[in-house]
Each structure stands twice: as structure tokens, then as C-alpha cells.
């Protein structure tokens, strides 16, 4: 599930949202040494249309530089907070932005690579989790239609529950579509299928048992 650790950040485009000070200079210089392309901004470029493309964003959590940052301007980017004040009111914003890692002030060259590495890997892990979440949600919302199709195959075609489920699964694999979509097709709720597919659905079911063609298909899929 977890991929190899990301550790080479050459060519990444970094946006640094900080007021000019020596800490910003150190950050910029170190990021350049790490092979990143660095853009500096005193304020978030949220009004730019389209927003310039970045791969990672550093923002000063102390000076309100993040005020203009919202999910529209920063679509799903790894954020790294540069933190001076540890007052909860400041840190609350770091949490709200879901910063993937942070750098404490005073900014030193040590620690920047670590913060970048943690943020990029944390963000990649979050993206994987998000994908898994979407897939699970889709399957969950499709459970009802799958059950409905299984019940219909049982009552209309006389299949056992197991055979009905396996038939749906196999047909879905054959067509390379999600099982939920296959269930909709079987219920006649899905988008129109070609005549060939329709006939396959008909011929595939023969009085409650699988025919030879389908046996072969099972073997091929497994």
C-alpha cells in the first residue's frame, strides 16, 4: 500500500508565502540547493486566474500570510507551516490548513529537508487514503443496487445467491466496468448496452447453471 519513500525533490515548484526576512532567505537558498524551483510571494496568489501551478507551499503561520489561502487557491497541495509563535490561535490555523509538516523559527538550513520530505510523503499517503476512501464510498453506495440485481437474478433466473453474485462479478470483469455498473445493466437501469452485450446476458444464464463459455471465462479471469 505504501510506495517507496519520496526523497528526491529536484524540479518541484515551491511557493514560499512569507514576508521578506533572513528566515525567508535561508529557506529559499536551501530549497534551491535541494533542486527546487522557488517562487516567493508576500501574499497568496489566490486571485490569479488561473492560479499558478505549484507542487508544495510554505507559509508563514505567524504573520497572517495564510489569510487569503483557501481550498480554491490551493487545491490539494502539501503545505508546510513556518512557525514562530506557539500560541494556540496561530497553531489553530496550521491545523485548519492541514499542514503536512512544519519548520520552527528561526529557520536554519538544518530541518528544511526533513520538513519537505515529511510533507511530500505525508501528502502522498493522504492522496492514497483519499483514493481508497473514494473507492470504498463508491462501493458502499453501490451495495444496494448489487443486492437488488442479485435478488432479481435469483427470482427471475433461478440462480443461487452465490452463482448470481459470481455471474455479476465475472461479467463486470469481462467488460472492465465496476460491479455496481454491471448490476445496473442487469437491472436495465444502466446506460444502453450494445446488442452483443445484451445477448451475452441472456445466453449467459441457462436455467440456474453456468454454461461452458462462462466456465472458460472464470478460468481466464482467475
Amino acid at each position, binding site marked *: 500500500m505504501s510506495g517507496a519513500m519520496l526523497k*528526491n*525533490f529536484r524540479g518541484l515548484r515551491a511557493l514560499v508565502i512569507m514576508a521578506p526576512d533572513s528566515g525567508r532567505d535561508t529557506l529559499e537558498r536551501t530549497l534551491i*540547493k535541494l*533542486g527546487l524551483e522557488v517562487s516567493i510571494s508576500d501574499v497568496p496568489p489566490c486571485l490569479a486566474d488561473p492560479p499558478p501551478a505549484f507542487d508544495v507551499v510554505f507559509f508563514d503561520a505567524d504573520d497572517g500570510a495564510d489569510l487569503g489561502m483557501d481550498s480554491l487557491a490551493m487545491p490539494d497541495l502539501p503545505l508546510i507551516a513556518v512557525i514562530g509563535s506557539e500560541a494556540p490561535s496561530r497553531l489553530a490555523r496550521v491545523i485548519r490548513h492541514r499542514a503536512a509538516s512544519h519548520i520552527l523559527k528561526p529557520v536554519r*538550513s538544518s530541518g528544511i529537508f526533513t520538513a519537505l520530505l515529511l510533507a511530500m510523503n505525508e501528502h502522498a499517503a493522504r492522496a492514497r487514503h483519499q483514493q481508497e476512501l473514494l473507492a470504498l464510498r463508491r462501493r458502499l453506495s453501490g451495495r444496494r443496487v448489487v443486492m437488488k440485481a442479485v435478488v432479481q437474478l435469483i427470482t427471475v433466473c433461478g440462480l443461487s445467491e452465490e452463482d448470481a453474485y459470481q455471474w455479476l462479478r465475472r461479467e463486470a470483469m469481462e467488460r472492465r466496468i465496476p460491479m455496481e455498473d454491471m448490476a445496473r445493466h442487469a437491472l436495465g437501469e444502466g446506460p444502453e448496452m450494445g446488442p452483443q452485450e445484451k445477448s451475452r446476458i441472456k445466453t449467459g444464464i441457462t436455467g440456474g447453471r453456468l454454461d461452458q463459455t462462462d466456465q472458460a471465462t472464470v478460468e481466464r479471469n482467475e
Partner: protein
Amino acid sequence: MAMHAGARLAIDEINATPDASVTINPVSIDPAGQLTGYIDGARTLLQDHGLSHVIGCYTSSSRKEVLPLFEKFDALLWYPSHYEGFETSENIVYSGAAPSQHIVPLTRHLLRNFGSRGWMVGSNYIWAWENNRILREAINAAGGSVVGERYFPVGETDLADVVRQIVADRPDFVFTTLIGQSGFVFLNMLCAAAKAAGIDLPREMPAASCSLSEAELPLLGESAAGHLSSSVYFSTIASPENRQFSQLWAARFAHLGQPSADAESAYVAVHLLARAAARAGSGDFEAVREAVRGLTFEAPQGRVTVDADNLHCWMRPRIGRSRSDGTFDILMEHPIAVRPDPYLIWASETEDSQSLDIRMIQ
């Protein structure tokens, strides 16, 4: 000791130059290898003596320990040791080899000439872990295997079991990052065990490292010969600069044996400092640091250039094979200086793009 001697040599050389604009009055402190000694020593040098430039530190832990003091006092540490990389401080000039100049070329050499089944044995600290990570990833990418990997506390000499296991496994090579006494004992045991098993160690299962130097070979006795080492300097480099360096060394420090990479690196660091100060017209921390960017020096190892961005040095990697007389045969050297790449971001650790540049010498 070798570093101190190398630095002394350069300081005396600089101070003896009649028309020099720079003279160096050194203050020496010996932290005796203790971390607290480094902190106290650095504080004494920077605070009490008000110095802006310090040549020193061997281990990474000592360097990391004193770095905050150099940042606080606006001073520059001239760090003359090869190390595992992953640092670029604006308060350090690194004159030793970075990973792109020691473990990466050694990895290529081992995989190309001996095979991809490796055994790794090391002292249990960062130098071993990080070098082994780089080697392990390259071995895996080449479709080979890490036959075994073991770590021992620094100074451990009870190594008979691991030596027995290595000889039984017969890997294509053994990569060792054991330091100090552990390293000597290990090579002695490995040589004896290989001999007993009828294995021609240098040809069939060489022991390779990124730290074996001329300073250690006399301590290995009969097991000194036949081991591979990756280094930017060997005492056998044939150049006018190295001949001069070796003569100076022999005249003053013959009791320390042959000059080694650590000695040369400290020698280079002092010369870079003197040249940077001359260029800056001042010994001031910031002026010298800016002046050292891009500076070149015709060192005993060849031309060394300080990288303008990361303050590490462009140098030529070399692979040597130790001889019984305490020196190294240079098997391979990079024809041009290799970029110092402390974060390994420019050269992939495994790719062979530089292979065309490497030529066999013997």
C-alpha cells in the same frame, strides 16, 4: 591526528610564503573524541578566542553538536572529512567527499566488476546506515541481493560469528563500515577465514569500504593487502602537487606513516581558507564565506573547486586496492571532478550515466 598534521603542514606552508597577504596563528584544542569536548572546545575557540574559522571535526555527531555554536557566533567550520551527506550549512565548508564522490562510485565499481550479491557489516551509527541504504538500493535496482547485513557497537571485536557466516555465504563482495578497532579485527579475521576456506579474497570476495586509508594499513599487519577503498585521495597519486605534499609530510610526520585522505583534506581546507581570506581581503566570516564560493585550488589530489551553492568540493572519485607496503594501487579514477551532491538529487544513486567517464587505469 592525521587531520591535525595535514592542517599544520598547510599553515606552516602559508606562513612561510614571503609575500603572503595572509598569515595564520592557530589555536589548537583536542576534544579527545568526546562530544562534550567538542562543545566546550568550540565555545572556547569561538567565544573566548573570538575566532571566525575552525578546522575540525571527524564524526558527523561532533559536527552536528557544534554547528549551532557556529551559527550563533557567525563563524565558519572547515570540515575536512568524508561524510554521509544530507546537510548543507551556510556555516560549514566541506572539503571531504560527499556520497556522490565515495559510496556511489564504489557501488558502481562493485556491481560492475564483482557481482550483485553483497554482504554489509558496519558499526552501528549513521555513517554505516546511510552508506548501506545507498548500496542496498543500488543492489536491489540491479536485481541483486543483500545476502546479509549486520551492525555492531563501535569497538566491538567479537566478530567471529559474522565472519564465519560471510565466508559460508560466499557473497560477491563484502562492504564494511566498521570503524576503529572493530574494522582491524574484522579484516584480520576475514582474511584468515577466507584463506582457510581457499577463497582468493581480493579477486573473489573483496572487502570494500569508503574509509580505509593509509593511516590504517600499517595496523592491519599481514591482512593489509587486497582491500578496496573509495577515496578522493591516495598517497600514490602521481602529480607534482602530491609529490611536494608527500615530501613535506615525510619530512615532518614520517612517524605517522603515509599521508592519508583525512590529512590531505585538512591540508586542502587550510589552503582554501587562506585563499578565500586573501581574495576577500579580510578574515571576516561572511566575506570569507562569499569569497570561497567557486574557489579552486591545485591540491595534492588534483584540482579542487568549492561549489558556489553548497560549499562542498568538486573532486575526482578514485578506487584503490591496498598493498602490503601500506599504500594503494589506484584501480580507477574519474577523469573529471564530480559534482558534490550531498542530497543525491542530481545523480540517481543507481543509474549508470557516468559510466562512460570512468576509465580503468590498471
